[in-house]
């Protein structure tokens, strides 16, 4: 009789685990377990947990919008937006123009955001047109669109007639590689808004507010008539077409939205960092964002806001926490950096192997 009970319990456990894997997803579970392990190790090594958690929250907030940019693209059926550098460049261009015009502080950030949105609408429109012309190969095309635009912009950074002392080299022409934002009173401008401490953990209230506000807006957007049409078109193009939906138009709208989120994302990101990077800076930035949303449980054809929040938190949290841990465990070596590269790219690689054939036939 006892044996029977044991068997039953095991069945129950199995089905519970199977259920968890099915509803949460295996990658999410593994990364979450790994994240917990690293946190526990950090505690065991007597590292300062408040500082660690402050860092995690900050990185979570600053990366959130970039990951959120994946949602419209995935939902529309064009797959994760590997051309995120396109949006990022819109944000960077807006930064440089805003600084060149001599604005500072909140005025600067708002003006830059506005300009970034305008640039993103134009570029996103063209990019959407391009994607409609290459149906079936969106992800590859997107990756190289991002790469080549970054290369092209390197010329612009070098040759555009910017005069501002904040951004130029000490001598010669062109913009610096790294441009600091504290000189224009824009560094951590959102992070510091209403920020406070609990248990020694620094809560970047403004940063998180902005991120969650955009999450809410995107969530709301996908409950509108057009948003639902976009989702349906991505989920089953034939179905949508039979209901009279203009799928190509919707794909363009979704990718404009994604580009806008990328542009605003980099603005939020760089104000938190305190500087922004030109030239090859944006080159690889799509990959952590793609990995983030996939780790959160999204697939190449399905993504939700919850995937963004969970994925960003786990992925950025893991990256942030593993660094000091590795540093302490393998002191005096470069191992921490190697660990970081392996971890980050390993996660990306794993997430990318989960991308199955573009999500549509």
């Amino acid at each position: 009789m006892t044996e029977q009970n044991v068997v039953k319990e095991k069945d129950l456990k199995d089905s519970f685990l199977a259920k968890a894997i099915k509803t949460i997803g295996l990658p999410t579970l593994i990364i979450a377990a790994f994240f917990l392990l690293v946190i526990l190790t950090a505690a065991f090594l007597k590292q300062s947990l408040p500082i660690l958690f402050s860092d995690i929250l900050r990185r979570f907030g600053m990366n959130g919008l970039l990951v959120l940019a994946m949602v419209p693209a995935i939902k529309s059926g064009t797959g994760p937006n590997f051309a995120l550098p396109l949006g990022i460049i819109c944000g960077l261009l807006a930064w440089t123009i805003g600084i060149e015009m001599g604005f500072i502080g909140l005025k600067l950030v708002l003006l830059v955001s506005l300009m970034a949105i305008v640039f993103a609408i134009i570029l996103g429109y063209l990019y959407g047109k391009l994607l409609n012309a290459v149906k079936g190969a969106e992800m590859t095309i997107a990756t190289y669109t991002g790469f080549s635009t970054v290369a092209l912009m390197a010329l612009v950074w070098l040759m555009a007639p910017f005069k501002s002392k904040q951004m130029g080299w000490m001598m010669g022409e062109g913009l610096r590689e790294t441009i600091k934002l504290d000189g224009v009173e824009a560094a951590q401008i959102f992070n510091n808004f209403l920020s406070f401490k609990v248990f020694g953990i620094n809560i970047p209230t403004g940063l998180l507010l902005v991120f969650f506000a955009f999450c809410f807006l995107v969530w709301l957007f996908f409950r509108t008539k057009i948003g639902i049409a976009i989702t349906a078109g991505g989920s089953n193009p034939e179905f949508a077409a039979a209901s009279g939906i203009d799928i190509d138009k919707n794909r363009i709208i979704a990718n404009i939205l994604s580009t806008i989120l990328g542009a605003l994302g980099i603005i939020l990101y760089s104000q938190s960092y305190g500087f922004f990077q030109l030239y090859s800076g944006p080159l690889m930035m799509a990959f952590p964002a793609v990995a983030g949303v996939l780790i959160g449980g999204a697939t190449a054809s399905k993504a939700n806001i919850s995937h963004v929040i969970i994925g960003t938190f786990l992925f950025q949290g893991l990256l942030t926490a593993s660094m000091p841990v590795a540093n302490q465990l393998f002191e005096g070596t470069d191992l921490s950096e190697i660990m970081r590269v392996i971890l980050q790219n390993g996660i990306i690689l794993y997430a990318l192997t989960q991308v199955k054939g573009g999500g549509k036939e």
Partner: protein
Amino acid sequence: MSDNLLSIKNVTKDFNGNRVLKDINLDIKKGEIHALIGENGAGKSTLMNILFGMPVILSTGGYQGSIEIEDEEVKFSTPHEAMDHGIGMVHQEFMLIPGFTITENIKINREITNPNVISRIFGKQYEWLNMKRMNNDARRALDIMGMGIEEYTEVAGLPVGHMQFIEIAREIDKTGIKLLVFDEPTAVLTESETQNLLAAIEKLASQGIAIIFISHRLEEVMQISHRFTILRDGEHVITKNTKESNVYEIAELMVGRKVSIERLDSGKREISDDIVLSIKNLEVKMPGEEVKGFNLEVKKGEIIGIGGLAGQGKLGIANGIMGVYPARGEVIFEGIPLKLNNPKESIRAGLGFLSEDRKGVGLLLDESIELNTVFTAMQTKNEFLHNFGFFSIMNSHSIRNHTLKMIKDLDIRCTSSLQHTGNLSGGNQQKVCMARALTQNPKLLLVSEPTRGIDVGAKKLILDLLKKLNEEQGMTIVMTSSELAELRSISDRIVIVCNGKVEGILSPDASSADFGLMMSGTRADSQLGGA
């Protein structure tokens, strides 16, 4: 010792417990042209797949019974083995390489070669081609069929009829060919090409090759076959000498169902004489189901059935009207010409559509029953939305209420209204499709293959539902189906489509023979003097 070249004995085949062939017996003599007749799904293809040792048979558990060739039992596990035993097949779709000459196509993979220095070192793959002998062989094969065309002509650009002949030439060039299967060989040919082909087939038979001739065209069967076998629902109906039968009998045996057709007429229905939908010269480019000039007038409140064999275009009609596939022609709905190729217009005009491609066009499998139900109405009629000036957000409350009502009305079996439609059974998926169509408040419902892939019990429910809609709400219904019994059970009139056009309109009580003749495009009057 019998004079049978091929004997199929008690062959039975299941696909996952679903019996598709029951105890089939068939024997074919040398030099005989044996016609194999049956509706789509009667089991002809499965039988041929068994004969050819197609992998699909083996991978689904093989078959019971035995096949003998010249009194020797054989069991093929690959098509190659079948070919080695002298069985050849002429495919419906041409398997030819356009850029190659006729000879090269005939001889492909069976080339005649001469050794050379390199081949002596590296093997047979590197030998020269002996074009002269190959050309001679090709010539001989073409001559058998009376084809005057030069063997060194490229295949690209040849008329369809010629391609068919090259296909046959390839088969007869194979040494030791004993049995040739023709699967609907005349489907794509013109009349004169057909006559040439039939003559060629007779010539082949006179040389001692046995022929299995699969065709829906009963006239051709009558013209060339010596005997025929009819399959229906996987069962062997009859084998008979063609001379002792007639088209009428064949047609009846092909279509006839033992089960009587129930018609539940409550007599409450009103069919007015108003024409609600008038279709004139409709052409639809739907691959495999092309419509080539279809005309029909539908009266308000009636149920019209559209039947016909697969590939004849019946499915293209509704798809064309709804703008799913490019269409041309004139469709007048309630007196107003419909803008074609625009799904939104068709839906707004009051047409509802249940697609035959339920999982492709009909449903969002990864979304909830709620979204599936209201999507089209929301997008085309702006229902179920909260309006905020320049944007509008879905009204979850009204969507939930409406869906729950639909679930109750249509008896959709689900765990909740949020369940994804991909997890529902076929019958319940069809009900969700119907819920979506009804949510649009259509005045006319186009229903395509409503019971395809649905189990027997659910089939009846769906048909009852359609009938109820028609009786209680006066909904006009145009139902397209491959299942004649289904059409006959609820339609008022049945239109039979053949070759993309209306072949004729029959009453549901017309005899099975009439349906069979019409579906196979055979003019009954020419054979029987006005049936």
